[in-house]
């Protein structure tokens, strides 16, 4: 029996328990919070691994269980969990990276005053992310989707004393919210149009898979595009990518966990989970593919000109997520998930490596660094493995997954294949630039922290080594001559889909990128000091300023909304407020008028009384006389 699959619902509850315990203990229990957070994330990882092992058996049946949550009339809302091969894989990725980040943070956040709060938030995030993965219907998925957004907000703004961190947290929250609104509308539409208002993924699959005109093509496209809008927001695709680089203000382990490996991949996961809707709509698929491809090349070119170590990695993440979207849009969701799977490991590795460097030298500017390879050997080697994996150099994992995507692209759409190839070239180029500037050569800034940088403690290097090992081997589950991963994931007999042309070109792009990177930033720089920037100042400036997207948004949306707000505030103040004030003034004037009567002169009062009596008497007598 599937013992562990049946209790998969325990997996998210473990980190939740961790969050509650850590929060209840308070700030005094620093070591305890580290132990509780790490132990519980290890426990949920072990459980996820056991679930995955059960799923590896041939013909494992999807397991779904839950209970009725709300009953309204004859409509029942259920909440439950579902274990499929895809969710089992995601569980393992999330819990594994989560566990390693927990361990790593013990070193990275050692001297932080609020380390217990940090561990609490990380545990809460793990709970939300695992809940998101296990959700069996759109509504609970959406709940957890928002929860991970909140955790991201909290952790990006973790160092809230810094204005930049506060601004970044707000930006992350608000920009992703635009996408969330789209997802919410999609859920409403689904609720409206689905038979029996069902929102469960299994129902969605069966309804859209055998499209018998239950839901019209236009509505299908609309739903798919709205869902994709949610994914665009969460996964940092163009044009909602602007929050992700700013989110690097958070602690580096968070960048690795949330903004590289797990949460940003939730958008890809969402599209993969509701893939049947997308498949039912040609237009939606094309949109996904083109947005993905554009994001991939767009972000990669920005990454070429950035000088902040973490921002380069952030743009790289955006670019790789674009690759995943490209694969999804081309109809090969297994290739997208495969890239998600390998990317989670090598990008987490790169971020943690960057964190190790930042921890040692206390700067993020790569122009100041250099020569760190000698003093930080473990970091440098593991970082190199991650960089090579990202650049797509065989036999590291990134090569296999990127090759899978490029192969699909070559078969379906040569234009997107070329774009993907260019993005792969840029990827290799900027990773080489990053590696050369940070680890090779000599320190460029005379800072004691850079010259005397020491290797990080073992608690930080051990996760690096573990992730490096995974970055090397994770790709072998799916190779051009072995389609095991895709067939396992999609329950379809996988045909090996190797394309010699794609392999050769993708290796060539990676190699070319590394070589030109070496020539541009490595050797040449040492000799003449003249670099890429001097020869193409305009282009570099454009990329350095991120194509002025932020400025554009600032001018159009922020300024526009501010102006609208100011106008509305003026209307509120002068028109509405004026009316209210006028009412007050009128009442006051009436009061003043009435106050005249109250003059304190008893004689006046008695005169009024007498006059009143006279009036009454006249009235009575008059009536008598008339009647």
């Amino acid at each position, binding site marked *: 029996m599937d013992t562990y699959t049946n209790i998969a619902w325990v997996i998210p509850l473990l980190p939740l328990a961790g969050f509650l315990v850590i929060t209840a203990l308070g700030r005094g229990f620093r070591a305890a919070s580290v132990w509780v957070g790490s132990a519980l994330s290890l426990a949920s990882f072990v459980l996820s691994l056991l679930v995955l092992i059960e799923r590896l058996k041939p013909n494992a049946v999807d397991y779904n269980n839950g209970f009725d949550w709300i009953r309204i009339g004859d409509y029942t809302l259920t909440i439950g969990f579902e274990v499929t091969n895809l969710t089992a894989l995601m569980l393992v990725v999330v819990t594994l990276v989560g566990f390693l980040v927990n361990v790593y943070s013990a070193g990275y956040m050692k001297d932080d005053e609020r380390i217990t709060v940090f561990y609490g938030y990380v545990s809460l995030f793990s709970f939300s992310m695992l809940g998101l993965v296990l959700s069996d219907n759109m509504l609970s998925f959406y709940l957890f989707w928002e929860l991970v957004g909140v955790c991201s907000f909290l952790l990006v703004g973790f160092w809230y004393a810094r204005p930049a961190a506060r601004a970044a947290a707000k930006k992350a929250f608000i920009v992703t919210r635009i996408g969330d609104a789209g997802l919410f509308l999609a859920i409403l539409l689904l609720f409206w149009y689905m038979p029996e208002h069902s929102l469960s993924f299994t129902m969605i699959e069966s309804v859209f898979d055998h499209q018998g005109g239950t839901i019209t093509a236009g509505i299908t496209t609309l739903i798919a595009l709205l869902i994709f809008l949610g994914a665009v927001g969460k996964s940092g695709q163009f044009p909602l990518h602007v929050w992700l680089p700013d989110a690097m203000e958070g602690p580096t382990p968070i960048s690795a966990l949330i903004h590289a490996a797990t949460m940003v991949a939730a958008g890809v996961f969402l599209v993969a989970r509701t893939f049947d809707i997308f498949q039912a709509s040609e237009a939606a698929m094309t949109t996904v593919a083109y947005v993905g491809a554009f994001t991939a090349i767009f972000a990669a070119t920005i990454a070429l000109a950035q000088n902040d170590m973490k921002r380069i990695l952030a743009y790289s993440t955006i670019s790789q997520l674009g690759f995943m979207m490209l694969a999804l849009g081309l109809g090969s969701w297994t290739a997208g998930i495969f890239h998600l799977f390998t990317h989670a490991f090598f990008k987490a590795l790169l971020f943690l490596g960057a964190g190790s460097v930042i921890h040692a030298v206390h700067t993020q500017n790569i122009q100041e660094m250099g020569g760190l390879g000698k003093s930080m050997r473990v970091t440098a080697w593991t970082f190199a493995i991650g960089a090579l994996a990202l650049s797509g150099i065989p036999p590291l994992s990134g090569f296999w997954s990127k090759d899978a995507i490029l192969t699909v692209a070559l078969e379906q759409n040569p234009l997107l294949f070329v774009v993907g190839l260019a993005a792969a070239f840029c990827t290799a180029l900027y990773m080489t630039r990053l590696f050369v500037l940070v680890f090779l050569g000599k320190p460029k800034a005379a800072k004691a922290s850079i010259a005397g940088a020491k290797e990080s403690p073992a608690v930080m290097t051990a996760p690096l080594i573990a992730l490096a090992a995974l970055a090397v081997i994770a790709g072998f589950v799916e190779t051009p001559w072995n389609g095991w991963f895709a067939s396992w994931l999609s329950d379809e007999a996988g045909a090996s889909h190797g394309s010699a042309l794609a392999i050769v070109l993708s290796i060539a792009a990676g190699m070319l990128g590394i070589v030109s990177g070496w020539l541009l930033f490595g050797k040449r720089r040492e000799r003449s000091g003249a670099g890429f920037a001097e020869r193409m100042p305009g282009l570099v400036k454009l990329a350095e300023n991120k194509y002025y997207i932020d400025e554009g948004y600032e001018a159009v949306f922020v300024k526009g909304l501010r102006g609208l707000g100011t106008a509305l505030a003026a209307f509120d103040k002068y028109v509405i407020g004026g009316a209210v004030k006028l009412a007050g003034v009128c009442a006051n004037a009436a009061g003043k008028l009435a106050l005249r009567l109250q*003059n*304190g*002169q008893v*004689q006046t009062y*008695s005169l009024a009384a007498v006059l009143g009596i006279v009036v009454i008497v006249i009235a009575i007598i008059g009536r008598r006389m008339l009647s």
Partner: protein
Amino acid sequence: MLPSYLTMAAILFCIGLYGALAKRNAIIVLLSLELMLNAVNLNLVAFSKYGVVPALTGQIFSIFTITVAAAEAAVAVAILIALFRSRGTVDVEAFDRMRR
């Protein structure tokens, strides 16, 4: 006979009313009040002698009224003297504390 008494009382009452409402000196106001009371007394006595059911009750009642009026006048004058001592005037228009 009754109408002439009543007319007399009405004239007295009206004079008293006018004095109570229009005069500024508090002493005069007090005197006017007495005038009004006496107009009422005159009515009582007139009705007790020439009314529909003549009886002694009206006259006794008027004696009561005179007694009470005397007591009232004593208290009122005492209050007026106190007021004059504290405020230095007996002008009724000066006594408008109730306004605030």
